[in-house]
């Protein structure tokens, strides 16, 4: 779907494939039983400032992840340091806020973003599907990202129909 290229210290190139999902529940049943096997993910990276500073929350979220899958937690600003350190090659990057998207993917070659469960608590809320709502401001941010040529799709489960967000 997208490539992350990083020159390793030994001179070789490490290629990582990164899938991005926004879901305010981060790791839960739909992710563990749906997206992880569907995309053949070997590493889950949660980029979330609140969870990054809460070790109990990290333990809870990691409990249901099969042991062969690595889970990393990071603040949004430290994400670019974490990803090159991940051993895995197929990474699912989870964000709980639309507002974190542009900062998180800034230096990544992302072609597609998946939108899952999302229900902001305040602001002027636009309902784009039964499970995905966002504020006016967040929709504007999503359209800005779409304008850069990145596909943005509302899709909760792998076998559901995807709903695309267009920039115009």
């Amino acid at each position, binding site marked *: 779907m997208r490539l992350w290229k990083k020159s390793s210290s030994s001179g070789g190139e490490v290629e990582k494939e990164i899938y991005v999902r926004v879901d305010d529940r981060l790791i839960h049943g739909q992710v563990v039983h749906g997206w992880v096997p569907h995309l053949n993910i070997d590493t889950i990276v949660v980029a979330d400032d609140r969870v990054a500073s809460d070790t109990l929350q990290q333990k809870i979220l990691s409990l249901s992840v099969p042991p062969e899958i690595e889970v990393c937690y990071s603040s949004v600003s430290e994400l670019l340091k974490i990803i090159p350190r991940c051993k895995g090659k197929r990474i699912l990057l989870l964000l709980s806020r639309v507002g974190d998207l542009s900062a998180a993917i800034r230096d990544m070659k992302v072609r597609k973003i998946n939108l899952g469960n999302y229900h902001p608590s305040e602001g002027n809320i636009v309902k784009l599907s039964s*499970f995905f709502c966002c504020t006016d401001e967040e929709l504007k941010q999503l359209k800005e990202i779409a304008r850069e040529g990145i596909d943005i799709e509302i899709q909760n489960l792998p076998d559901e129909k995807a709903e695309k967000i267009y920039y115009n």
Partner: protein
Amino acid sequence: MKFGIIVATHGDFGKEAVETVKKIVGEHDYVSYISVDYDKNLSIIQEEFEKLVNKFLKKYRHVLILTDMFGGTPSNISFGFVRTEKVEVIAGFNLPMLIKAAKLVGDNNASSLNEIVTTLAAYGKDNIKIASRALL
């Protein structure tokens, strides 16, 4: 009464389970439920949990939360309450376990929260039966 029970599940699974248990062991206000839907805001759900847990902690010494699936959102939220020793959570409840729980905590001589959860987890597992192996 020392214990309150909250059943926290995806959708109305827990509500129906609680209704069924009431028909088997009788009407008890120490058993309640929370339904978690995918179309609800997460902080509203979190608040709902906090309200009910706090309400129960005012009435009962301990709260036992039973959730439908380890790793699911109802479970993930519930597990956060183990920060207080007064709350314990069992993920992956079934109806036999819930019935047993309602009976156990209704008993005024009920043992400690720790003993109760050990009993309940074993009881729930024991009550999963494969017909051909149970009968033939």
